[in-house]
């Protein structure tokens, strides 16, 4: 968090309902949160993110911890919302993913480069999910998009940190072997 205020000041103000403090937290967390949700449910990511923020708002006054702890807590909520949403979806026809999110970059300074970065990111995440088993992919996605360490990912997924390290090691090796077989030049 690059703001002048310390995280403790921000979180205390946010817990009291200060709009400015909540906006600081939102600006810091929303991009990675949205990228993570989009990696799972591209079409529903925006709505899921809104649900996650609602959950953050409901529990913020009881939150205790530092900045990395806040990030891990937010991703834990995000994961739970994903699971809830998939449970609901299983009872109704599936939604088709679209490119609606690209429309939102139209108003930014350099929409072309941002759109390119966005597309490249989504392609990379898609590749990770294609190549890796579910558990390895989830570890890599949470670590890379969530900017979380192995311990935090372990708490979110209910696994030991050592297990997370083993999974990420296997994931990288599998990706390297796949690229080698496909003839991709490093």
């Amino acid at each position, binding site marked *: 968090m690059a703001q002048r205020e310390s995280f403790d000041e921000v979180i205390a103000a946010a817990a009291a309902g200060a709009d400015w403090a909540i906006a600081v937290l*939102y600006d810091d967390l929303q991009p990675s949160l949205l990228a993570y949700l989009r990696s799972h449910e591209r079409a529903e990511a925006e709505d899921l993110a809104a649900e996650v923020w609602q959950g953050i708002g409901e529990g913020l006054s009881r939150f205790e911890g530092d900045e990395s702890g806040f990030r891990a807590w937010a991703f834990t909520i995000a994961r739970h919302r994903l699971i809830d949403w998939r449970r609901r979806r299983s009872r109704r026809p599936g939604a088709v993913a679209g490119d609606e999110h690209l429309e*939102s970059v139209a108003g930014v300074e350099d929409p072309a480069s941002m759109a390119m970065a966005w597309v490249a990111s989504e392609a990379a995440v898609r590749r990770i999910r294609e190549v890796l088993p579910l558990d390895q992919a989830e570890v890599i996605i949470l670590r890379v998009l969530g900017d979380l360490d192995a311990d935090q990912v372990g708490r979110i997924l209910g696994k030991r940190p050592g297990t997370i390290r083993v999974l990420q090691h296997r994931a990288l090796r599998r990706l390297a072997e796949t690229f080698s077989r496909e003839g991709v030049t490093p």
Partner: protein
Amino acid sequence: MSAGDALEPDMTRFALDSDSVERIVRGAVEPADAPPGYGEVARLLQDAAAGARISDPGTARAATVAAVAEAVRSHRALELTSPRKSMITKAKLAAAGLVGALTLTSGLAAANALPGAAQQAASDALAKVGVSVPAPNDHAGTHPDTRGKSADHPAGTPQTDASNGSQPSDNKGSEISNLAHTTDATGVDKGAAISNDASNGKSQAGQHGPPTANPAPNNASPPTPASGNAPVATPNGGGTSTANTASNGHSSTGTANADQHSNGAASAGSGNADAHRP
């Protein structure tokens, strides 16, 4: 070439230490600087991470922040009232616990399944509110409702009777020792009494003649306990003649020797003993 042979070079080629794994995952390794075989992996992860750094252009930002602020404030308001709610909840839980405990106790009392004292107390208490449950001795019939007390049995006293042959007493040895020290019987009678007590009445000691524990070394004839009789008529008037008869004359010889070696003092002793006989 087997599948194992094909995998072996890959295992060596893609070997990666944990520190390198950590640095690649954190995006701290440029693709060009990555370990052999991992350049494209590093690039892939960097591309993926870039998506998490793209700011939300803000269509939903203001609305989301406002909604979160509202959620925070409403939940704070709820929590400010929570102490009262908490007290009410605690009171409800306590009441529920009390009702549960009373129900359980009453049920056990009705089933006469409580310990005696508790059953009596429950019976008395419930009788006051018009509920009839059995007292602890309702099923005792004519048997007294008395309980054994440990005070009735002094410490160290065994609970089983050794004389009934059911269980040996824990302090049988001390009983026998006590008998040996306190009985008025002597000799064979004393041994028989002790033996009888030790064997719970099974011993026949003393019923078949005198003991022959120390036969003469050269006496080849076996003891004759079956006869049950001494070799002389007993009692007789003179111990010396009896001893003489019983020892085939050795006793008299011994007396003479004793007299000889005591310069007549032995005979004098006998005379003195005769003089003081009651």
